[in-house]
């Protein structure tokens, strides 16, 4: 474990992802009956109301914490993993936060960016799971499955690359009898 991998995530993007998804669901429900479902859709569509924003921030923090818990053996305890930043300001402010993990020397550096993307997807899906849990539990189950898929892919990213070939050759390994 020698390389340090810093996943830089954008809180506004994550929250926009959640809002966009819930917005689409609300609009679909309204398309069935725009009048009867108006208030339903309003309440389904995350955001803007103060208690919506607070729930989003709470579930974002929780999603980050779960992510770190799942990768506990890799999370860099010496680094300042700034989960507290995710709650310190309102959601419409552009705030990056980082998660630092220690990875093997043989970590494939090309997977750093996909891993950041997957981490973001994991958090969006976990937040959507929390969002729908009380409104549409059946739908919530889908999102927890999506989050699990992201996590599985993240773990696949943590695989080691093949060891570096030594300068010598196996055929050169010899024994002598004297």
């Amino acid at each position, binding site marked *: 474990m020698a*390389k*340090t*991998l*810093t*996943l*830089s*995530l*954008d809180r*506004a*993007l994550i*929250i*926009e*992802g959640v*809002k*966009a998804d819930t*917005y689409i669901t*609300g609009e679909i429900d309204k398309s069935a009956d*725009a*009048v009867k479902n*108006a*208030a339903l*859709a*309003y*309440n389904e*569509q995350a*955001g*803007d*109301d103060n208690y919506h924003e607070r729930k989003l921030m709470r579930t974002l923090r929780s999603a980050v914490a779960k992510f770190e818990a799942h990768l506990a053996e890799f999370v860099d305890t010496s680094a300042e993993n700034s989960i507290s930043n995710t709650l310190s300001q309102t959601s*419409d402010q*552009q705030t*990056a936060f980082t998660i630092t993990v220690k*990875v093997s020397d043989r*970590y494939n*550096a090309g997977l*750093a*960016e996909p*891993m*950041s*993307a997957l981490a*973001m997807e994991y958090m969006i899906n976990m937040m959507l799971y929390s969002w729908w849990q009380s409104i549409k539990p059946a739908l919530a189950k889908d999102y927890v499955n999506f989050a699990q898929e992201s996590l599985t892919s993240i773990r696949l990213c943590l695989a080691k690359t093949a060891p570096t070939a030594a300068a010598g050759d196996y055929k050169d390994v010899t024994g002598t009898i004297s």
Partner: protein
Amino acid sequence: MFSDITLSSAEEGEILSQYIKTSAHDIESVLKQLITQSTVASDITISIENKRGDADFNTRVTDMIAMYIVLNSVGEYLSMMHPDIAQKYHRDAQQRIESLVAYVFYKKPPTEASADPLTYDSNS
């Protein structure tokens, strides 16, 4: 018929005033989730949260509320003497309040975050 439905001073002063207030309370009831402040007296003032609505939200909502109160109050009044005509006003009032609910509970799509969703800053 028109002599029947001309308002007496008592009707205008008390009964119609009561219908108007009741209609305003109907509005308060259906929009209660978003109402931040409301006064129903000689003037009716209803403040509604508008965080993701149109710019001319206030004008449209005020017009719809006023029209509902007029239609519903007329319908209530007519129902005493001309229930057949009153039904039309009640139907119109119902449609108006449904439009109001659909409009007030509308949210625009969420604001785009300024960062490009397809780029991620990461390093190893």
